[in-house]
């Protein structure tokens, strides 16, 4: 480079900024200020994401234990009948096990299907109806199952 090449940087136009003449302050993009509208959705999606993982771990134990008892041990499915159910629900331990499994599995599955509907149903009306059907069926099934566990009567006949 020869010495007479003019600098690529031109002279500063106007006055340079200094302590007495500060540059205008530019706020960081997306910074929350007093004028930013408050978030209206809260952290529901994050809570749902976390719930899927926490309930998933618990369900691995509850469901695989349930499968082992019902389909593998002691004759597998052949031994299942009213008497077998009565024997198990005589114990509060298995009542709590089944109740917890019912609630966690239904909520885990309902949230999974909600995600699937959100992904594939594009028309707002379709989404509304599918989710309405999903939530109705979920509430009905959870309540029915809970009622059955709590009101089970081994001497029904």
């Amino acid at each position: 480079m020869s010495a007479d090449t003019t600098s690529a940087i031109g002279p500063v136009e106007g006055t340079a900024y200094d302590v007495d003449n500060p540059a205008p302050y530019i706020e960081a993009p997306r910074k929350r200020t007093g004028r930013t509208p408050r978030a209206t959705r809260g952290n529901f999606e994050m809570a749902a994401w976390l719930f899927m993982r926490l309930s998933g771990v618990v369900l691995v134990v509850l469901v695989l234990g349930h499968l082992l008892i019902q389909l593998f041990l002691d004759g597998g499915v052949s031994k299942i009948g009213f008497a077998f159910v009565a024997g198990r629900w005589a114990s509060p331990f298995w009542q709590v096990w089944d109740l917890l499994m019912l609630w966690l599995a239904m909520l885990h599955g309902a949230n999974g299907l909600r995600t699937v509907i959100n992904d594939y149903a594009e028309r707002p009306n379709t989404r509304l109806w599918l989710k309405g059907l999903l939530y109705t069926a979920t509430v009905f099934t959870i309540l029915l199952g809970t009622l059955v566990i709590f009101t089970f009567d081994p001497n029904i006949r």
Partner: protein
Amino acid sequence: MPAGTLYRGREGMWSWVAHRVTGVLIFFFLFVHVLDTALVRVSPEAYDEVVATYKTPIVALLEYGLVAAILFHALNGLRVIAVDFWSKGPRYQKQMLWTVVGIWVVLMAGSLYPVLGHAARELFGS
């Protein structure tokens, strides 16, 4: 593959697809299962009658399929948790998927006799 798609193929996408499909199937089974169990509030006979159909060879095959779906969903779910929470999870996601598939194959082979044995005895005699 269409341009601009989110679907990248390979282990990551296919395990995601399988997780979805098995999850939806298990959820639909769960509805039916709560309904059939609710029959214990109707009468012991009504419950035993429905459960008797669950002991037929064809339904035994469906039960084997249910075990297959639940085992994959459970094992791959643990893999998803590892990918999300373990710092090295994303790096080892492929190896973890093949570990899941390996454990799944072993468990499915081990489930053959316990789940389908009674159906085999019924079909081919003891």
